């Protein structure tokens, strides 16, 4: 990988603390990539609901882009946000240069940064 690519790499920053597991990203992506049934460009994993030893509830969703994700190359070229980012009901996804996103990553806990391509 050239240095050029590394410095211009884009990613998805996800504030998964507030992911409600609504599946909008999954369906938005299927439509965008025109995927056949049961193929996904992004999947939402679930942990819980589980009562922790502290008596609190853990119930966390974690969306992650699969190998099919191309970071919505066509949309982005056309000046739009990636489809999952635009449609996420909790509005917890940000698309942009990894460098910028990594700064944001430090702003709060329970965030994750993906670099699918």
């Amino acid at each position: 990988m050239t240095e050029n690519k590394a410095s211009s790499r884009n990613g998805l920053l996800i504030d998964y603390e507030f992911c409600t597991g609504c599946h909008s990203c999954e369906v938005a992506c299927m439509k965008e990539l025109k995927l056949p049934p049961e193929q996904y460009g992004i999947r939402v994993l679930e942990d819980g609901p589980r009562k922790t030893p502290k008596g609190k509830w853990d119930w966390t969703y974690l969306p992650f882009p699969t190998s099919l994700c191309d970071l919505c190359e066509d949309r982005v070229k056309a000046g739009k946000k990636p489809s999952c980012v635009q449609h996420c009901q909790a509005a917890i996804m940000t698309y942009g240069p990894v460098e910028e996103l990594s700064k944001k990553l430090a702003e709060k806990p329970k965030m994750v940064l993906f670099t699918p391509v």
Partner: protein
Amino acid sequence: MSNETWQWQEDGCTVSRSTQWSGPGCHNGCGILYYTKGDKLIKVEGDATNPYNAGRLCMRCLNLTEAVNHPDRLKWPLKRAGNRGENKWERIPWDEAYDIIEEKVKSIKKDYGPESIIGMEGTGRNIIWQVPYLTYAGFESPNYTLGFLSGDACYLPRAAQQAVMQSDFFVTDCAQHFETRYETPEYEVPKVIIIWGNNPIISNGDGFFGHWIIDLMRKGSKLIVIDPKLTWLASKADFWLQLRPGTDSALAMSMLNVIINESLYDKEFVEKWTAGFEKLKECVQEYPPEIASEITWVPKEMIIEAARFYAKNKPAAIQWGLAVDQQVTGISAAQAITSLWTITGNVDVPGGNVISKSGFNVDDGYNCGIEWVSEDTLQKRLGNESYPLKMYGFASTAHGDSVLKAIESGKPYPVKMLWLQTTNPIANMGSEAPRVYDAMRKVDFNVVVDLFMTPTAVACADIVLPAGMSLERDSFRAWFAPLRAISKIIQYEECKSDEQIVLDLGKRLNPAAFPWKTVEEWLEWKFGNAKDHYPDAFQIPWSGKTYRERGNTRGVTFKELQERGWIYADWQYRKYEKGLLRRDRQPGFNTADGKIQLFNTLFDDWGLNPLPYHEEPPESPYSAPELYKEYPLILTSGARSWEFFHSEHRQQPTMRIFHPDPLVTIHPDKAKELGIKDGDWVWLESKRGRCKQKAKLAATLNPKVVSAEHGWWFPEKPGAEPILFGVFDSNINNLTAQCQNGETGYGAPNKGLLCKIYKVTEENSQVMPTMQVTKMGGFGYDRK
């Protein structure tokens, strides 16, 4: 992309900005962009410029292409060719369908009176003023109702109670009344939000985009969640009050007890703007936390702490939902919850519970056109005979259970025709579904207007009319803000919009009441425009209001609204201080003495409980201990899923990939005791009937409570009986009841009944419920 115009070209598609509301859909009305080629929908996107949803969409709208382009859609009018239930149809032209209907309506009116015709619709749909108008102005019948909805138990108990207590609608303030939303300087983020009896992120009830709650959580709002089930929101809440289904009144009264006895209420507000506080104070003494804890199963400390947390943090809001209505004391629970935000002074303040008028007040819903029903006929509205709230005009519908009884008994008069517009009662809205099935089959003449061939249509329709979907009609969404345009973009086969169907038929039945040439003209009139064109129509008062008092868009026409997409009305907080709520323009609420009625004088006059109270659900471990021995589980149902809106969306392959089967949630401990594993098919059975669902084990419930899904039918199965799309096989409404209402006629205990659960075996599954109901006379018990 452009904000200047509502249509433009992109990638060889026409892009149109509009609003998606049913059908198919939900209670919202999100801003959407439709990408079309000719009359074909290619894809959709959320409209990022619309402040309502800010570009977001749920999976149902994202998957709209599968709905709009579905090969099984109804395409043209159909006339029944075989017997009811055989699913045999003959294609007919619209004119022939209208001729048949016109002839039937006229002869029934002549022979039996207009009251023998019932107009019905499903919940939250874009027909909430159209079907009432057809019923009242077209049929001239007083009997407009929801599809056999027992106890009118969906928002209507809350609405009727609000009408009596202070006469306006309250909603949680998420800055939805401002175009600039959360950035608006006068707006304040609620410090605490109570989520009471709903899971708004999935259900989006009553014009409330549920993920606004997430927006506010991210801005610092803390949650109290009141729900028998651990929802995702409950798992994030500071307090989750896991109450026993049907005990909301007792819980709210106990919270009032804590707030009043610890002097945590807003004394100034109570003094100035409420009536009956002393009586409420006396009454809440019957519900100290230790007593309420026994009733509700919520630990005493939790009730106390949650009440303090709510009262001490201001502003605070309560986001309430359907579960409030679905109990015999629905009215009472609503009154107690309203009392909570009232005595804490969270009334119409930023970040509290605010008084909302639907977009410029142009939507007067269920009373639309009632003036066309004669005084004498209005008195015959079914339910009036038993319930004063109905009789004295505080309700806008006939009583669903009374309609059912009239069909069954012919008393007080026979029912001769049902007009069912996008409602599918045997799959969804009617509880005691097999009973509703029998009743509908008894009626001489039934018309179904819908998107797909439904079990209801196959079972009982004589004429089926194809309705257009949201992008195939000119209309609007007004609940609550902004006023949004819905634009006709494509034409699908011979489908017509609900407005067009009502207008076509209305012109034949009662031309004086339908003077408009086109739907657009009708919408103008609805918007309070074109007064000069229709002086006669404007002379008729509208929901008891004269033209001047009626909502109007201040001259904005439908075409202008379409161009702009949406418009926001001016917004003011503390309207009661400014004389903005009353007809006489004096400060105060729109009640006789201008105050919120904590003690309900009108109820008192009518011999109803003037103060909130707890009453055991009719089938509970305490009210029916013998029954509880045989049916040792508390059954709640109706929780929403992302994929479906009630009985809709089952024919979309993508939805069924995410959610293939009906699920009943059981606590793992209880499941173990019953020998049930995750994914096993199980029978759920009450004293009325049974149905089959798949077990999902989750520790989100009290082990004594199970939660079943509703609305299931299987469009992939044959429609002809005895299969009937398998509509009764997994139907939780084989177990629920009709005609178990509260003293007001409102409320039904459908979220708190008793049942048992056992594993499906080959031996116990010889006769499937649909066969049992359609060919063997049902489950064989006494219908009350």
